């Protein structure tokens, strides 16, 4: 059989992921909690789980009218669709250029890739979000304007442009596998593996990078900074895993991907949750998910606190 090698490595395939884990362990009624970032943020607030601050939630076209007044008070922000996926529709504004034209305040926006947008372009993008251009099923959507997250200094040598994020797969509350996604020039500064960001597998015991790939190829150094990626060790590792583990209690979904960013001031915070996390994390880690998932299914003790579940994973994987 051509698949016998995949079997031996315990690689999780799409059909298996959907049929055996997502459909079994993810109750449909909890999906909105992860798909809609507004709901996720509300939940997180109630549970005391750290997330970026939401400045504005734009639910209809009418609220676009005096948008520039509302935005003028901030220095930077991020626009994202509440129901988006894979980072689609997200725009990061790192600087608001405030001028005065004919006595009227005039705003220009500098994006993380240094492109300049005017307010009309910004509103156009937001109305695209509202009409469902980026939402999972094309239904009309809500736009969130939230605080821009700054890059933790540990990533200075490992990232080009945007903020790296840490993906943790959490199964029944146990962190299973994780990776950090490092933006590159070819990914346009975004932490999107499709577009060529680095996927760096993390050792569950200690948060060391154990392997790194760009699209399916193993890399040793960051193509833009030249730094050796394997030297990277994430700080706050036990906290990161505990945070990821808490998300299971928060949303009640058995199989999720938790995206975490490290902030310079607040430490690890949740960026978003994903009820259908991708499989590329196995390539980044050069190992399969199935043995770990089965170990949790068969051997993990039940009714543990998030901290203990994280500890179980650190000990076993």
């Amino acid at each position: 059989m051509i698949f016998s090698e995949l079997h031996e490595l315990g690689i999780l395939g799409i059909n298996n992921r959907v049929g055996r884990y997502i459909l079994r362990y993810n109750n449909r009624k909890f999906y909105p909690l992860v798909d809609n970032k507004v709901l996720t943020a509300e939940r997180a607030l109630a549970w005391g789980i750290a997330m970026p601050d939401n400045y504005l939630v734009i639910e209809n076209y009418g609220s676009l009218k005096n948008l520039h007044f509302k935005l003028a008070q901030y220095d930077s922000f991020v626009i994202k669709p509440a129901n988006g996926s894979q980072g689609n529709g997200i725009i990061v504004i790192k600087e608001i250029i405030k001028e005065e034209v004919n006595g009227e305040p005039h705003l220009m926006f500098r994006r993380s890739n240094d492109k300049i947008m005017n307010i009309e372009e910004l509103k156009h993008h937001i109305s695209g979000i509202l009409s469902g251009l980026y939402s999972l099923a094309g239904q009309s959507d809500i736009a969130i304007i939230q605080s821009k997250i700054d890059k933790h200094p540990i990533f200075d040598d490992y990232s080009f442009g945007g903020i790296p994020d840490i993906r943790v797969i959490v199964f029944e509350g146990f962190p299973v596998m994780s990776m950090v996604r490092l933006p590159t020039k070819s990914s346009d500064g975004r932490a999107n593996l499709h577009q060529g960001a680095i996927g760096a597998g993390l050792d569950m015991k200690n948060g060391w990078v154990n392997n790194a790939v760009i699209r399916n190829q193993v890399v040793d150094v960051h193509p833009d900074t030249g730094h050796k990626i394997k030297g990277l060790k994430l700080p706050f590792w036990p906290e990161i895993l505990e945070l990821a583990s808490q998300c299971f209690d928060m949303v009640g979904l058995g199989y999720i991907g938790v995206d975490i960013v490290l902030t310079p001031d607040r430490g690890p915070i949740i960026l978003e949750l994903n009820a259908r996390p991708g499989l590329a994390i196995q390539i980044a880690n050069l190992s399969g998910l199935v043995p770990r998932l089965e170990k949790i299914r068969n051997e993990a003790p039940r009714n543990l606190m998030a901290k203990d579940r994280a500890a179980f994973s650190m000990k076993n994987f």
Partner: protein
Amino acid sequence: MRKITFAITTILIFVPLFMLAYKVQVLNISLIPQMVEDVWNFHMSMRPKGEQRTFSYPIPKSAPGIKLTDDKIKSRDMEVFIDESSDSRIATWTAKEPFKRKLTFSGRIDLKPLVYKNIPKDFSDSYPKGLDIFLKVPDLLPEDVAAISLLENAILEGTEDKTSLVRKIYYYVEEEIQRNTAIKTIHETLNTGKGSPLIKAKLFNIMVRRKGIPSRIVVQVRMPNVQQQLAKKKSRFTFANEVFLSNRWVPIDTNRGYFAERPDSVLVIHHNYDEVEKLISRRNASYTIQIERAKINKYNKTEFKKTILRSDSFFSKFSLYRLPLPLQAMFTTILLIPLGTLVLSLARNIIGIPTFGIFTPILLTLFFKETSFGFGLVFFMIVVLIGIGERYVLDKFYLLAVPRLSIILTLVILLMITYTVTANDVSFISQNHLAFFPIVIVTTNIERLSIMITEEGIINTLKTLLGTLMIAILGFSLYTIPELEMFMFSNPELLFTVMGLLILIGKYKGYRLSEFIRFRDLVRQKKKLEAK
């Protein structure tokens, strides 16, 4: 798999199959209608000569191997009498004024070959009275009689039974008399060894009758071959024989070389040349015969419907053949869609081919089917280009998504009418008013395509586009098998089998073929690490 799923799947898959078996074995209904083969449109027109007020002409009649349907005689204000008293038919027109217009006979003809195997030896010496006229030897010149006697001595010496006699005469006339249309009398033929087809038939007829065996000359028409059909060549009467052996008329053709056999390329107009010789002569009338292959009604649905209704079973009550024809046509198309989804599910979940939207390939398949493959493909490509171009152009206007999508849709409709109005030939587009409908729906997925280009890059987008087209083409290939369409239409219960198979695909949790490629590098690198 859980027991209940297994049970449901098994029932869904096998019950319809048992139903098929029941239809074939017990009810004797075939699974699809028979193809209507060898059907010809036959058209014969006659122009009577002189001032005739009654006019007779032989017309074909159904007989073993010849099935005549839809036969029509143009009569207008004339009276037509058809004499069917013998095994042939003669139509007689009567009018108050002499005939000015052409008289016509037309019909649809289904021919089957007629073959008599192993004709036993025949020693009969007396025949029913009605056959007397077929024994009468025509008057010949004394020298011709002498020549024929000599021939008989040479070739028939010692032969006793009539079947062998006829066979020997056949071999002689078929092989020794050369075909030559200029030689038109028995006398010349006996001197030169050549003769026209009619003379050969006559000589054979005389020689057989002289041996006391009933024989006759048959007037017939040969079906045109492909080239002749293309050239619209008119057919002429030709002549063959029939000999009464072992109590039946046995066809023999000394011109084309058939003994006790009539091929399915021959239609008998009249079985007794003697009776119609004057009628078909040029002095009485001129005639033209046009024969074409009938292309309509590829499957004999009418007959099939009758068979089903006659079976008086469960199936006769729920047959789609009860529906009006336009609905039947629609369902013939629609019933293949579930098969298409089967292909789609296999392609997506087992092979792992990416597609735009879930049902876009199926919609494209329908579009190809309702127009044509080439046109459909080109049109789809143009729609894709419009979708991409639109994004660059309309981006400047900051339009909301729904109106913008609607603009693409309107552009596509504009494209359709522009094409349809300006094109020379739109006959390939189904007259069904829904022909363009699938592509209109596909349009709404085009916006996703341009988003995908920005989000995932041109390579991934092209892969997805190709995947979509590939499945659409696979689906379309189902429609190129007419038997499949008929099969599903005649046995719609198979939809349950399709559902059973879909459950099986839905239950598949193994790897997709595409994952073999996706994780290939992982496997390779893991091995390299282990080797270290």
